[in-house]
């Protein structure tokens, strides 16, 4: 083995670090430039990209590091979204959520909403993960899809919170010292969470949990042979993954001031998978690159044709066939 080969990982990391920095600054620049140009709509697009990227960072923990192809992550996105929507709607109306055995009211404080959204999504991921991880491969995909659809139809048939029509929250929840209705300030919250989630994901990837997760992706029996229970590792990652996606769901509800069963649909699960695959599966900033491209295509191609997803599909096909590292693979090398 040559000295160059030994040094290669460090060189790739440095290249990937440059791409990651460029993506972070690029996403930050969009709303700043948009405000300077008097185009606040672009701030909303950038915020949407940041929130979807956050959901993608969550999915990437399970899919990218653990090799768990979850087709039901919309369930966690929606659980977080509905937790935020239900709390906020009760907080605004003053009606308690439950009155027995003790009275629990709603809230419009993000600092109270986020932990509930994260806990709800994590609990959902724990239950779904514990059952789904009994299977592997295509069966895992199918069972997560089935759970996602169960959550979707549950919300469709729950009239108390809008059923099929969804639940409007009218105004965004509050955050101390921030005007959340100001697009740029709300973007700052979403962007801050995205950066924090990326840091957390980076720390997890380098931790023993992350190493065991990558080992489990390669071969579960081999991991068991060194004394680590693969299912515990995968379930832990799945729960963390669901919790991050749930947090993104709560922010998405605040962005739109509306939550509906569409957030739990299989199409949403598919979109999350698509943006992670486009950006680069298992790459730290893959979901960021994927979400930025996804939103850009949706806006730019959506203005040209109602069938813009045809072009997205073609692009996904090209990535899967010819550029399996996605955008990050193309920009920073396949093995980064």
């Amino acid at each position, binding site marked *: 083995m040559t000295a160059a080969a*030994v040094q290669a990982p460090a060189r790739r990391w440095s290249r990937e670090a440059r791409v990651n920095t460029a993506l972070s600054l690029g996403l930050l620049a969009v709303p700043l430039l948009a405000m300077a140009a008097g185009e606040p709509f672009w701030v909303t697009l950038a915020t949407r990209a940041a929130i979807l990227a956050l959901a993608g960072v969550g999915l990437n923990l399970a899919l990218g590091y653990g090799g768990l192809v979850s087709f039901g992550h919309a369930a966690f996105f929606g659980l977080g979204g509905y937790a935020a929507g239900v709390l906020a709607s009760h907080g605004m109306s003053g009606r308690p959520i439950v009155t027995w055995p003790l009275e629990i009211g709603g809230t419009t404080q993000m600092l109270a909403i986020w932990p509930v959204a994260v806990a709800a999504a994590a609990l959902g991921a724990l239950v779904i993960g514990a059952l789904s991880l009994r299977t592997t491969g295509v069966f895992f995909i199918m069972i997560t899809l089935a759970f996602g659809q169960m959550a979707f139809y549950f919300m469709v048939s729950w009239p108390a919170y809008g059923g099929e029509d969804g639940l409007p929250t009218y105004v965004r929840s509050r955050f101390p010292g921030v005007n959340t209705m100001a697009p740029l300030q709300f973007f700052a919250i979403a962007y801050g969470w995205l950066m924090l989630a990326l840091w957390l994901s980076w720390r997890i990837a380098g931790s023993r949990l992350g*190493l065991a997760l990558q080992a489990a992706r*390669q071969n579960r029996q081999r991991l068991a*042979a060194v*004394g680590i229970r693969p299912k515990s590792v995968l379930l832990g990652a799945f729960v963390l993954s669901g919790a991050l996606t749930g947090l993104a769901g709560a922010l998405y509800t605040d962005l739109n001031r509306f939550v509906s069963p569409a957030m739990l649909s299989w199409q949403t699960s598919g979109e999350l998978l698509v943006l992670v695959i486009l950006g680069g599966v298992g790459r730290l900033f893959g979901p960021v690159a994927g979400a930025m491209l996804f939103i850009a295509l949706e806006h730019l191609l959506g203005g040209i044709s109602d069938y813009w997803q045809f072009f997205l599909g073609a692009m996904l096909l090209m990535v899967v066939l010819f550029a399996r590292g996605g955008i990050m693979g193309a920009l920073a090398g396949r093995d980064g």
Partner: protein
Amino acid sequence: MSGGLLDVRGLRANYGGAVALRGVSLSVGEGEVVALMGRNGMGKTTTIRCVMRLMQSEGAIRFAGVDLRRLPAHRTARLGIGLVPEGRRCFAPLTVRENLIAAARAGAWDLGAVERLFPRLAERSQQRAATLSGGEQQTLTIGRALMTNPRLLILDEATEGLAPVVRQEIWEAILGLKARGLSILLVDKSLAEIRAVADRCVILERGADVWMGRPGDLTREMTDRYLGV
């Protein structure tokens, strides 16, 4: 022999409808090196997989007095059995150091001790395991097994297909581990090295043990008949 660290009695296993083991018995005592021998397809790797609980089997398996039959593989490993599987199966996406850290459990074998045993691993610490040579990958899988601080190390064809200089390095390492009092169950075809390292041999023939004894008692007739040497 009974009362050893590892005791296997009447081990039977199938692959679907095909019988792989018809009744294997063996034991490994504290600090003992036992060689499991036999031609290809006689059940050596299957025996190891059953001991590690990587496949279902019938018969008795006890390690340090604990019945392993109902334990999952990770619990078996945690009891103190380290496996070096055949085919240099390291965690390919991880670096050398990450492979070692992922398996680490508290004990005398830590990163420094493993890197002292195999200095090349220290030189390659930041390199992905997939990019290592075959010999380096094999020393990595041995190092990874040692990082679990096992009481019994199982080596399945650890020197198979390696360059003579690497084989020599691995046999010297095995001798060093024996000198430190580690119990070892090894599968290998190198008769000369087995004679130098092993305290006892067990020969398998068509899924059953047919001979047990000291390596020095292996006759030319037996090696011709059972090992095809």
